[in-house]
């Protein structure tokens, strides 16, 4: 292997600022130790929030309530359209309303273990603590969670847990939580306290004297390039799953804000930690533009199976029980169909690769509700999952009340992201990163119903406290958009746009994106090998070369130009993908969603190497075309013992 990187080892550049002492006291102690900005002084500070999903909307609303001057920028025409809206299943919280043995410590434990011991214990514990306040806040906003007849909140269970701690609003929990955060934000907009700037795409981060002091954005409807100065910048811009082209992410989800901040000095951590969700509707044709997830909550009642005999082409209802292999129940008797996502996804791939898959392509498994419908009646199942069943039928033309759903894993979430310390501050002072865009809390695998929890924890409760460490802790001389750093960044953004328009090549941006996606899926997807990753790196570089010669962007930059928007995003994916593959090849172990075929147990489970890889890897950009430097933040486990995960 070509040593593309120098391993910078344990870096003094990565100070996690993790508190010490008993873990249950760390967050309160840390908050007490943090500096404060007095109420009357808050209006002197301008904060820019980029992105208005759960993390961004909740942060913008809360900071504005606190009295900071806030500008919220979003890529959509309305902040309510951010991709958090599509989250289906639920949000975890350690309320223990069901009296089934849940606690903050158990949620903490499950999350650390579910993440395969690649997250920071202090962060995860804080997340578990805050989880209960999130539910309180959302209920107070009028989020219509599911209820019992007595009027109390209902819960369901989710993968990777043996308690019922997931709060939900039918199959549209993300929508309802986002509308809650959005309404809190719009209340601030209505009162004139918050400046909402929709239709803006961030093209660059502006760094002055080493501190994040603003952004360059493009107004997607007028084409205007704008400068915005601030005392702090919050990136809440989501994950990078669309590097695979086909994923469950919305079409506009991209890595651009993170990647351009990376090039301005923010380290990128664990890019290879990607979550492949086990239950998605399989690909149907080459025109496919995205994949649709079917909530993990379906695994509460649906049973996953394939025929016991290879190539059994009978219809599902004609295959009797004795000829069915309920392989998750067989392999993992205690968690059964509710094993964590990475485990369920790999098990589906294993069955399909071995020739037992179903459907025309043989690349899917059944998720069957026959037994649940017999047990509880169709009405009960309809009440729980009606909208999901309807969505499935629309897409496939098949009725899941009558025939089992067909499912295959798809890219869904990215655990990696910009490196942040305990304050959620990146390696660029003044640049905070929240939600899926940061790397911190889910380790190498996220548990179901934990993304919504993290996004809202970061936005409602963490950053509103920790941002003061920056605003009150550093001297921030006044910076306006006349500063040369703004001119430089704007010039670079304009030059890139012009370069795209001048290319006048032969192929569409999408055609390159599809090609990149297929390559990533084959070599950097559910199973990775040293050779495959080396091949991927070489091929990505070639593809990037070709892209920069050959794409065709119609029109100009003075109006809505969706091809131009896509070009910038795909250009960044083509750079980012190489770092992704590099990170995956240097991490010579399997953990969570990162599965290296060379490292597995005899039963085919992920085999970690705690001796050499019990750390977060954070990459430092060293200049265009130069190898990135790999820095290491060691992870220590004081409260959850490092063990081989077992869900048997």
């Amino acid at each position: 292997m070509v040593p593309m990187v120098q391993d910078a080892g344990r870096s003094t550049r990565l100070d996690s600022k993790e508190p010490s002492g008993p873990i249950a006291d760390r967050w309160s102690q840390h908050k007490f130790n943090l500096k404060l900005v007095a109420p009357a002084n808050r209006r002197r500070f301008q904060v820019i929030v980029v992105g208005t999903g759960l993390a961004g909307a909740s942060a913008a609303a809360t900071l504005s309530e606190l009295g900071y001057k806030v500008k919220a920028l979003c890529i959509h025409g309305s902040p309510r359209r951010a991709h958090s809206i599509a989250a289906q299943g639920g949000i975890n919280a350690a309320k223990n309303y069901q009296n089934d043995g849940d606690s903050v410590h158990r949620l903490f434990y499950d999350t650390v273990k579910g993440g395969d011991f690649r997250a920071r214990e202090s962060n995860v514990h804080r997340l578990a603590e805050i989880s209960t306040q999130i539910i309180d806040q959302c209920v107070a906003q009028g989020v219509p969670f599911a209820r019992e007849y007595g009027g109390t909140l209902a819960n369901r269970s989710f993968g990777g847990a043996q308690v019922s701690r997931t709060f939900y609003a039918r199959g549209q929990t993300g929508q309802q939580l986002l509308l809650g955060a959005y309404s809190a934000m719009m209340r601030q907009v209505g009162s004139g306290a918050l400046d909402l700037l929709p239709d803006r795409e961030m093209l660059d981060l502006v760094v002055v004297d080493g501190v994040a002091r603003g952004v360059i954005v493009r107004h997607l409807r007028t084409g205007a390039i704008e400068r915005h100065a601030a005392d702090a910048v919050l990136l809440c811009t989501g994950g990078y799953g669309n590097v695979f082209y086909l994923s469950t992410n919305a079409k506009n989800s991209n890595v651009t804000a993170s990647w351009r901040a990376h090039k301005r000095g923010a380290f990128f951590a664990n890019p290879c930690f990607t979550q492949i969700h086990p239950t998605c509707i399989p690909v149907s044709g080459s025109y496919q533009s995205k994949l649709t997830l079917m909530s993990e909550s379906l695994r509460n009642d649906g049973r996953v199976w394939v025929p016991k005999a290879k190539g059994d082409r009978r219809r599902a209802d004609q295959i009797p029980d004795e000829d069915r292999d309920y392989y998750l129940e067989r392999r993992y008797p205690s968690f059964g169909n509710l094993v964590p996502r990475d485990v369920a996804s790999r098990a589906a791939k294993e069955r399909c690769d071995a020739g037992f898959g179903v459907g025309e392509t043989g690349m899917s498994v059944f998720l069957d509700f026959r037994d649940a419908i017999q047990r509880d009646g169709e009405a009960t199942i309809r009440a729980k999952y009606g909208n999901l069943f309807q969505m499935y039928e629309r897409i496939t033309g098949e009725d899941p009340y009558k025939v089992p759903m067909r499912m295959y894993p798809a890219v869904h979430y990215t655990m990696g992201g910009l490196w942040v310390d305990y304050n959620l501050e990146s390696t660029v002072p003044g640049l905070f990163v929240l939600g899926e865009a940061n790397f911190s809390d889910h380790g190498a695998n996220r548990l179901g119903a934990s993304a919504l929890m993290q996004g809202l924890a970061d936005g409602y409760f963490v950053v509103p406290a920790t941002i003061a460490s920056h605003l009150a802790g550093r001297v921030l001389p006044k910076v306006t958009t006349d500063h040369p750093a703004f001119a430089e960044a704007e010039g670079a953004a304009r030059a890139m746009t012009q370069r795209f328009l001048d290319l006048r090549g032969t192929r569409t941006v999408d055609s390159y994106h599809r090609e990149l996606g297929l390559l990533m899926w084959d070599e950097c997807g559910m199973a990775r090998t040293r050779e495959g990753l080396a091949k991927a790196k070489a091929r990505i570089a070639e593809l990037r070369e070709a892209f920069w010669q050959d794409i065709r962007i119609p029109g100009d930059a003075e109006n809505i130009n969706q091809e131009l928007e896509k070009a910038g995003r795909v250009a960044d994916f083509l750079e980012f993908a190489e770092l992704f593959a590099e990170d995956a090849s240097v991490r010579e172990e399997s953990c969570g969603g990162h599965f290296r075929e060379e490292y597995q147990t005899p039963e085919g489970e992920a085999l970690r190497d705690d001796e050499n890889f019990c750390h977060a890897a954070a990459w430092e950009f060293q200049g265009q075309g130069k190898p990135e430097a790999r820095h290491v933040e060691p992870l220590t486990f004081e409260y959850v013992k490092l063990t081989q995960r077992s869900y048997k």
Partner: protein
Amino acid sequence: MSAASPTAVQGAASPTGAAGTKQGLKLVLKVWRQGARGAPGQFETHELQNVSTDMSFLEMLDVLNEGLIREGKDPVAFEHDCREGICGSCGFVINGQAHGPQKETTVCQLHMRSFRSGETLVIEPFRATAFPILKDLVVDRSAFDRIVAAGGYVSVNTGSAPDANAILIPKDNAERAFDAAACIGCGACVAACPNGSAMLFVGAKVSHLAALPQGQSERDHRALDMVAAMDKEGFGDCSNHLECVASCPKGIAGTNIAQLNREFAKASLRSGSR
């Protein structure tokens, strides 16, 4: 409305049909093309061959656009994001129906199996005074955000909430609130209404919050302020055609309009302002 140069574009039919021989659809598209806000627009005709019935409507437009770009033409601009029917970004009118022919379905979830070979599809943007056309099928729906900013919330600062189970809500009320809260803000209701009214959108938000004990103290203000904002944005009045309900991809019920009327009337009487 002159037809611009017709273009034949090859749609990629999938080989997923029985024995891989499924015949795709042949379609004629008449698509609204408009360069910018306030610019004149016209329909442009395109022919598509061999369109797979498994494609979504937007994937069909993707194929059209791929072809247009390769021919050096400007692709059709349309908004979309999640393509799962939940973000509310997409939406245009197909043959006179907002979001097309399938009940309770956004255009991103509408699949080509809903159409027959040989059909002509007229595709145009949502048209309403309060939704100016920005380009092709893209309209400005920011008026909805301004209505929500006027009162579509419960005023509760972060950190000041009581324990979640301290507020008991009967299951039926929670379900009713959810039914109204399921609105995705796509604007089809406005486009479908002969008056360009936003009553269903506003009614859904007011009903959602009226069904819950939270935020009761601002219930009157909410109804009055949201209606005032709606009027200011240039939405028309409701004359009970209920085309909004027929076009709503989320099945938001017409009773929400009745509830908005009640809330507004009660609030007006109590405030004595109208």
